[in-house]
Structure formats: C-alpha cells, structure tokens
C-alpha cells in the first residue's frame, strides 16, 4: 500500500494543492461500500466482509505460563477470506495467541472457536483443515522437501484434498531443491518449504508465524504473491509479523498486541485515522502570523513549523493559500499521513489504549 507523500523544497506550490494527501487505505473488497474489484474471492459469502461466515472467534482469551499471564483477555473475530495480521512487540503475546488458535495450547480462560470447533479439544479434527507455518521450521534436517511434502498427506489423511507434491514444490519455487536435505537449505528456502507444507492439504485457514522472516526481498514478494492468490481462492489467513510493511501490503485487518492485550484493531485506514498527520516546513524570518489552523501547531528556535492535524487536506490548503497570499516561502515543506509505524510505536511506547477488547469501529 503506497503512502501518498508530499514533499517540496520551494515556495509557490499552490499547484500542489491539487494533490490529495490521502492514502489509499482500503483494499478492494475490504472497505464498506467498496466492493471487490481487484481480488475477487469466489468462495466467500457476500460482498461485504461482515456478511462472510466467521471462521475464527476468540472471547476473553487468557493464557498463562506459570504465574506469568502472556495473554490477558482478548477478543477477536476473523471472517472467511480475510487476511488478519497480528502485530506486536516481542513478548506481546502474539505467538501464544496463535498457538492457542492452532490447538497447541489450552486457553486458561475464555472461549476459542476455529472453523466451528474448539481447537485444543479437537486438534486432530482441525489438522486436516488448516495449514501452519511456525516461527521456525520444525522439520528434521535429514529429510528432503519432497519427502516432507510427501509425508504430510499420510499425517492428514482426512483432508478433503491433497495437492500434488510437484505442484506445491513449483509454487514455492523449490522444485530445483526438492531432493536436497533440509539441513542444506537456506533460511529463506526453509521458510518457503514451511509455506508449502501449510498448503499441501489445501487448507481453509492458514496460520503463519512470521512467514517471511529470513527471506530476501525477492522471496518475500513471491510469498506475498502466493498469499494474495490464496486470499483470492477464499482461504483465510492469520499471520503474525514484525514487518509493518508486510501488514500494510497484505492485511485486510490488523491487530496490534502489547503486553498481552489487543491495543488496537481495525483496517489500516481505521488504525492510522487514530493518529494525526503532520505538516512540516521551515518559515522565513519575519513571517506573518499563521492562519487559524485546526491542528496542533509548534515552532522551534530554528523556525521549523510542525502542525499535527487530523484534517491534513484542509490545513495544508489553508497553509498554502496563506503562503501564496503573503508571499511566504515554505522551505522543506512536507505533508505526511500517519503511518502504521507511528501507530505501532505509539502503542509500544505507551501501552494499550483500550482494555484489550477488539475495538468496534
């Protein structure tokens, strides 16, 4: 998702007033009133995300390690065909949450339902319907990709369909390394194999724990492409990541965990809307008083102007008109929409702003 960004070094930029510094924050098919156009999902039910069936539901989830409470009561819902990204600082509780959803960990309190079943109690039943990518591979180094992919159908015999091993190898672009021992694969190749293993039983839901960690930029893009293809096929994806760019590029909705709580949840647009945009410029000596701007205005000793505003277009227009009318040159002018990084750092720095409940927006 590209950030629309305005930067200019000179005055006389009234022409720039035509620029709409509003980011394209909604992915087609995910924003209310914005029907699917670019990524049709034939297996989804209804045009609007809220019309789709819930595949994952968590209410008041709590998980503990001994006396340490890693997850302190979170609610979330994921619908079919959605890519839900779980972000958070180290130790925020992302992996614990994911493991609970996968059925590897019993919730100490709360209600968890995945594809209509309790994932811990019905782990084996669920196994054939989901795909998993762990934080690290979890595959014996002495086996080859072909052997591991060939083994999985025998370990998930109830799956409705198994993909052909060669097709999966080609999709993850490991066909040329199919018979090399896993121990000899690079970190990125192992991550691709993990993804292939998650795909082999043609799952309805995939959990990915930092799927592109250790991948080079090219491999990361290829993985993103595969995830987009899965979404187009109606597969639901839940991923954790430290890569904010990854969440921005892929996620329909994003949740930010901090200290065991869900500090914020929403679409990218909803999350960034909670933080102000910034207009910055350097004013000349003797500049006349600024117009009445809605945002928070600061000057420093170096004549730098900084305006934090929730009405970027309106205030930028007012500033540019003021600059034109008074013949004021605005050096180093920048107008920047709030970013996911700002939202993330604000939460990581100050802690959750809610009581951990999924924020209704």
């Amino acid at each position, binding site marked *: 998702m590209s950030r629309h960004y305005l930067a200019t070094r000179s005055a006389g930029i009234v022409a720039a007033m035509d620029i709409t510094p509003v980011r394209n924050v909604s992915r087609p098919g995910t924003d209310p009133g914005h029907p699917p156009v670019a990524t049709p999902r034939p297996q989804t039910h209804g045009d609007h995300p809220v019309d789709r069936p819930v595949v994952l539901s968590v209410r008041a989830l709590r998980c503990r*390690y001994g006396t340490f409470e890693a997850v302190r009561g979170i609610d979330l819902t994921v619908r079919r065909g959605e890519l839900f990204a779980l972000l958070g600082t180290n130790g925020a509780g992302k*992996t*614990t949450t994911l493991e609970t959803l*996968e*059925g*590897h*960990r019993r919730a100490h309190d709360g209600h968890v339902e995945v594809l209509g079943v309790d994932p811990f109690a019905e*782990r*084996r039943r669920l*196994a*054939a319907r989901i795909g*998993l990518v*762990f*934080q*690290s*591979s*979890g*595959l*014996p*180094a*002495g*086996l080859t990709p072909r*052997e591991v992919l060939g*083994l*999985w159908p*025998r*370990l*998930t*015999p*109830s799956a409705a369909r198994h993909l052909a091993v060669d097709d999966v190898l080609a999709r993850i672009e490991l066909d040329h390394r199919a018979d090399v021992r896993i121990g000899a694969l690079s970190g990125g190749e192992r991550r691709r194999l993990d993804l292939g293993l998650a795909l082999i039983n043609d799952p309805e839901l995939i959990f990915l724990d930092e799927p592109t960690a250790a991948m080079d930029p090219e491999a990361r893009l290829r993985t993103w492409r595969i995830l987009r293809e899965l979404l187009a096929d109606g597969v639901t994806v839940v991923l954790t990541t430290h890569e904010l760019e990854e969440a921005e590029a892929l996620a329909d909705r994003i949740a930010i965990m901090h200290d065991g709580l869900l500090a914020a949840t929403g679409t990218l647009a909803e999350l960034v809307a909670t933080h102000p945009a910034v207009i910055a410029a350097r004013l000349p000596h003797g500049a006349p008083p600024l117009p009445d701007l809605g945002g928070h205005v600061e000057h420093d000793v170096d004549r730098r102007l900084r305006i934090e505003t929730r009405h970027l277009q309106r205030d930028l227009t007012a500033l540019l008109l003021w600059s034109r009318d008074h013949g004021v040159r605005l050096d180093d002018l920048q107008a920047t929409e709030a970013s996911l990084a700002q939202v993330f750092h604000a939460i990581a720095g100050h802690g959750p702003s809610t009581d951990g409940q999924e924020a209704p927006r």
Partner: protein
Amino acid sequence: MTATLALLRIELRLLGRDTTAWGTAIALPLLLGAVWFADLPPMGDGVGTAIVFQVVGLLVMTLHTVGTMSLVNRREQLVLKRWRSSEASTTGVLIGTIGVPAGLVVVQAAVLSVITMLAHGQAPASSTMLLVGVLSGVVTIGAVTFVVASFTRSSDHALITTFPVVALLMGGAVWAMMRPFDPLDWPVLAIPGGASVQLLRLGWDGPTQAGAGAAAWLGDAAASLGATALISLVATAAAVRVFRWEPRA
C-alpha cells in the same frame, strides 16, 4: 495408525541416514557379542546373568539415554510440535518418536542374547519369557523416558537428568541379581525395570515349581507383569500431565 506408521517410517529413514547412529546400533551388540566369543572363562550359570545385564544396559543406553535426547532434540527443533499439528494422536507422535530406539533395543537384545547363548552353548528355559522381559523393560523405561524428557531442558541437560534412572536401573539390577529369585520380591518389583529383571531371570531359569505347566509360568510372571503395568501407567499418567511439546511451554 496410518499417521503413527508414517512417523515410524520417517524416524527409521532418519536413523538410516545417520551413519553414526546406525553404525553404533549395529556395532554395539556385535562388539559385545564378539567379547563373548573371545577367550573368556566358562560362565556356567552366569550366562543368564550376563543376558540380564546386557538387556538392562541396552534399556539404559539405547532407550532411556538416546530416547530422552531424541525427544528433547525434537522438542527444541519444534519437530514434536510439527508432528502434533498433524492428525497423529498424542500417543502416536510419542510412539513414532521413541519407537525406533525401542525397536532397536528389542533387535539388539535378540542379537546379543543369541550370540551369548551360542558362545556358551546354553539355552533359556523360555525364549518367549525372555522376550516378554525385554518388552516389559521397553514399556516401563519408555514411559519413564517420557517423564524424564518432560523436565529436561536441553540435550546437554539430558546427560544429568537421565543419570538417576541409569543409576537406579543398573544398581537395581545388580542388587536384584544378588538376591535369590522370588516372584513376589516387592522391593525389586518396585524399581522401574526391576520387573523386567525378574521376567528375564524367569525366562532363563524357568519357574520356581519345576515341571509345572503354563500356570506356573504365569503364576511366577504375574506380579512382574502387574508391576510393569502399574509403573508404566503411573509414569504415562505423569508424562501426560507434565510432558512439554515445545520449548516455550
């Protein structure tokens, strides 16, 4: 069952590719067997004792020590978690992981016992009861291995955590062999692996009532089989409660 068999096949394949492991697995009994063929004094009644210690040694080394390290390694590498994300049952995953060392113990014990018997020209009263003794040890020590692996943090740590069972089993075997055979020797039966020693002795020497039929065999074996079942069940129940499938648990 399909999943468990698939895991066993994979473990066997991995063992086959680990030249050090299978080399040791084959070389160990053959080397020990060669010792029996070497110029040793006749053992007389000591052949049965030798077989008991061979089996106990295999239970300690091949099953308990290697099994604990194998479980801990696979947990550290998230392999157990990976297998458990399949449709394989919890028991299936554990049997799949430890099944190969357990099977190796049976094969090694059989090879070693046959070599020892051939070297000294003696045969057991019942080969079947010897096999039951070996299987009893595999079940009990296998279950204890799961418990030990539960609180073993790393492969290095396994060198420490396996020691108590090694000492108990070896020391218990020596102590048991110093006592006259009594099918109801409760102190011996209370030691993990003690029942296995009793069954091996029974298999070599025969029942206490000479000339009696199957009832005598069963009568002498009953307490040992009961002790095997009880200790294995207690250890399994403990393992189910405390076994950790991944390092973070």
